[in-house]
């Protein structure tokens, strides 16, 4: 169990680093790289939990590896907080506010969106009476 979480966490963190390198943030600018990482990770956790809800017989390591490990390691709260702090202390409080609030809202919508997407896609295979979410 812990090994699956550790392996997943390493995979997720490396993926986060690749996005950070592809989308570097200039000082004072909106941190789009971390925003994208956190929002896409939330879309995927919403989708994953919906899939697991539709498949009660899934392998017991799927959630520790993909959910706790990969997506938990991919998304980050510490970088989000440090970037917001840096925006405030460097004289960009409005960008910090937009980043703080924008990530919270987009991330919540992404969780819901991911779940809705999976339920829509799965609908042809699951009659409503069979849904166990």
């Amino acid at each position, binding site marked *: 169990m*812990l090994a699956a*979480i*550790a*392996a*997943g*966490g*390493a995979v*997720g*963190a*490396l993926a*986060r*680093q690749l996005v*950070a390198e592809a989308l570097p943030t200039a000082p004072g600018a909106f941190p789009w790289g971390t925003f994208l990482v*956190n929002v896409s*990770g*939330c879309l*995927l*956790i*919403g989708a994953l*939990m919906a899939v697991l809800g539709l498949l009660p017989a899934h392998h017991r390591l799927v959630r*520790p590896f993909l*959910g*706790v*490990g990969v*997506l*938990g*390691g*991919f*998304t*980050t*709260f*510490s*970088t*989000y*907080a*440090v970037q*917001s*702090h*840096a925006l405030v202390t460097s004289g960009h409080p409005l960008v910090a506010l937009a980043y*703080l609030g924008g*990530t*919270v809202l987009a*991330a*919540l919508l*992404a*969780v*819901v969106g991911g779940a809705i997407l999976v339920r829509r896609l799965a609908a042809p295979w699951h009659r409503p009476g069979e849904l166990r979410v």
Partner: protein
Amino acid sequence: MTLLMIALGAAVGAPARYLTDRAVQSRHESVMPWGTLSVNVIGSLILGALTGAGAAVSPGVVALIGTGFCGALTTYSTFSFETWRLVEEECYAAAVANVMVSVAAALAAVAIGYAASSALTG
């Protein structure tokens, strides 16, 4: 080399998040996800301290402890998912409180860590 340090740090950070969450969640009965809040605040404190130390910390340590360990110890996906679960369960006040307390406490932790380590490393 940087990627190896990140992977190593994350391989410790992610299980540490799981174990901390389990330990914290087993010690209270409220609907608030205190476990995730704890790891997010602790990780923010450490990353704030690391950032405040500036050039006194080598890039390898930043990759290992910052990007790897702190990045994997903290999580946005679980934070959002648990907040959404509170909304679904109609615990609206708890959902709002979880967002407000998480963001405020993490920012305060960064500020404290940053100030302390930049004072120490001069």
